[in-house]
């Protein structure tokens, strides 16, 4: 029965992983990544690693992928992805290089140890294997250093996010509706300051900033006066 479940979930995991790469609609790509992550969690369950399995679902499917879905549903979702850039020959060469490196590494792992352990029964597990208590014990004794370093890394990331968000310091008086995406709706966000839409479209990075004198002036004019009236 374990074999049956293993092949079902492994199939789903592979199909999900392939879907991420093959599908053209970014929303479906994200969904297949979710399928992949949940299948991995089920494979962890088969390995009696319940805590890891649940952490996988709660952290990856429940938090990280939620953010992905959020962004893609707002700004992506077209049938064809925008052709923002095409890879340069150098990037292609780098991609092939890294790809083959990973392939060689995996091949060594599979040929070296994984194949030889196929016929065996596997390690004998204690009754408490994979429980949160045991994992916590290990994390706070044997792997304390790695655990603390990882938490420091997360702390640095959190502080960095707060600092980056704080540096913008709100919206100045003269910064109006410069973002060309928003049309007539007055959204007080200056262009190229890292809004979600800009981040995804690559606006301000790969495309030159529009001259506000020339572009979209007729559209923005009434909205801006309306906002001034409010003040």
């Amino acid at each position, binding site marked *: 029965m374990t074999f049956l479940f293993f092949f079902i979930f492994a199939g789903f995991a592979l199909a999900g992983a392939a879907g991420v790469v093959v599908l053209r609609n970014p929303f479906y790509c994200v969904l297949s990544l979710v399928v992949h992550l949940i299948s991995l969690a089920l494979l962890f369950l088969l390995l009696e690693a319940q805590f890891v399995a649940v952490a996988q679902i709660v952290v990856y499917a429940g938090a990280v992928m939620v953010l992905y879905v*959020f962004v893609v549903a707002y700004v992506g979702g077209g049938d064809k992805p925008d052709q923002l850039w095409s890879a340069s020959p150098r990037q292609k060469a780098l991609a092939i290089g890294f790809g083959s490196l990973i392939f060689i590494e995996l091949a060594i792992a599979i040929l070296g140890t994984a194949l030889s352990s196929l016929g065996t029964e596997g390690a004998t597990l204690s009754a408490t294997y994979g429980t949160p208590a045991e994992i916590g014990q290990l994390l706070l004794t044997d792997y304390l250093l790695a655990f603390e370093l990882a938490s420091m890394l997360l702390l640095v990331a959190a502080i960095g996010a707060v600092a980056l968000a704080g540096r913008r310091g709100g919206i100045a008086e003269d910064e109006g509706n410069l973002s060309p995406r928003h049309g007539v709706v007055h959204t007080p966000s200056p262009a190229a300051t890292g809004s979600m839409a800009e981040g995804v479209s690559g606006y301000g990075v790969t495309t030159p900033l529009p001259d506000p004198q020339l572009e979209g002036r007729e559209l923005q004019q009434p909205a801006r006066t309306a906002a001034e009236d409010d003040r």
Partner: protein
Amino acid sequence: MNLNVPFALVGYIEPWWMVIIKSVVFAFIGLQLVPVVLMMERKILGRFQNRYGPNRVGLYGVMTPIADIIKLLSKEPFRPKTAIGWLFELAPILSITAAFGALALVPYGPVVDIFGTATGLYGIDVSIGPLYVFAFGAISFYSVMLGGWASGSKYSFLGSMRAAAQLISYEVPQGMALIGVVITAQTLSLTGIVEAQQGMWYIVPQFFGFVVFMVASFAETNRPPFDLMEADAELTGGYNTEFGGSKFTLYFFAEYLNMIVVSGIATALFLGGWLLPFGIHPPNWVAPFIVIAKMLAFVTFFIWIRATLPRLRYDQLMSLGWKVLLPLATLNALITAIIVVA
């Protein structure tokens, strides 16, 4: 005789046939509680608003939920032209699946003897405890999100987007609020947590944890005053606007089931599950009734709040979650840890 499940050890003590009977019975209890809660909500809300509530179908209107369900199930299955077919079908099914999956964790009683077989009066007793519910919460998020997105309607989409932001904001304080309980009980298993409350229910020493957990639960189950994803004045109806008939029934049932599950979890974590105060030790067969009575008390509280408080504004909701509840929950966990260790 243990059930040989290929999955991680979940501590089944029953033979396999008892596990199957148990799952059917607990699923049935959940399904039967939904109309009860539905009726309670209407009657209590009616009384709060100085009216009778529904009283036409059956004695005192008790058959109203049945009429409701028949009406919903006999409606024409309708689908907007812009909807994405298979996702539109899948989303409500995901929603009810996640709700039933989480229901399995609610403990109704200790291990008892049924026809000479030792049976635990709970769906499953996992060593990861409440984390199991959070995992299903993550899946139910996708049902809401996909429902809104696949409807091909702006209002549904806006509703599901609000839900997305709300769910990820409130999952964090909800989880943090439980850490105090887990530290005090020194176990994650829900039956273990209930047994650890023999001396005193955790609502007393973990009062702040309880308050944070309840507030976050209101947001997690999208109940008023946090029902922003269904704010009908702004969004016409939220993520389920385009769903009708049986698909809407699934969403509807899942929403009420989620409320029942949260009540059950809160009962086990803070109100001592099947334990009674003042040293009363009833026989074991009373245990499920005690748990269900406590769950319905929680449901009444949910309805009471709905009748009392107005809906929050969206930015208020977000700042409450991140700036008030999360620091409170963290502080609670920290102080509990210091007290337990010291």
